[in-house]
């Protein structure tokens, strides 16, 4: 048996890498991917807990999260397309009309 805490630490590491990715990446799409990575990390935690407790609700949550991620992806990519059309660039640092 793999201890639950292993899964949790892995999930934390993935979550942290997502944060790092968000901060580090410049391309809007990859930044969004970093968010997806974070959501995946959460899913892992849910499933791990679910298994540990012997309750299925954790898995239900994962399904919800995946749906939400899908919805976010649709809207997010729509926004990215909009941005790309307006700026001809996907670099998030170049999108800074609104500031100060």
């Amino acid at each position, binding site marked *: 048996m793999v201890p639950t*805490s292993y899964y949790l*630490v892995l999930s934390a590491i993935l979550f942290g890498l997502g944060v790092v990715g968000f901060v580090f990446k410049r391309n809007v799409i990859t930044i969004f991917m970093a968010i997806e990575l974070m959501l995946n990390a959460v899913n892992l935690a849910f499933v*791990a807990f679910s298994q540990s407790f012997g309750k299925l609700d954790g*898995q239900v949550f994962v399904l919800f999260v*995946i749906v939400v991620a899908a919805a976010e992806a649709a809207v997010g990519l729509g926004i990215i397309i909009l941005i790309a059309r307006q700026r001809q660039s996907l670099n998030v640092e170049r999108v800074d009309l609104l500031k100060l």
Partner: protein
Amino acid sequence: MSPQLIIFFLLAALAVAGALSLILARHPIRSALSLIVVMVALAGLYLLLGAEFVAAVQIIVYAGAIMVLFIFVIMLLNAGEEERTNLSRIATMAGLPLAVALGGFIAAAIARAPLLPPSSAAAPFGAASTKSLATLLFRDFVFPFELTSFLILVAILGALVLAQRES
């Protein structure tokens, strides 16, 4: 070391490597592919945890549908290599250490946290689990489930509104 543990470590390593690759890759396509690797690794872990249904959904919906959407958009926009600008002073100077610190903090806290004892009923879920999953989803959580339908409606609507060409 039990085989499960070995598989766990392999998959974990794969997932972390995928995540690192996602971060380090310059081309978005590579990042996307790396993310798919992560997802697949996670699907493997789900199997290891006995959550077959989730693992399947992970592969089909996540890796299959969502990531395809990503790649589609990358292609559509013809996104090239990432431009590593450093226009944000604070992100350049402190971004990485702080993000690492945050992740490390969370990981360390979790690693040191005493966990609740595993439930005595913590039997592997088995095949019956998908059915009970359905019961849970359509009875106990029917409200959020229905709500997600509107969420998807909104997503469609949003994508439509945002991405449609100027009339």
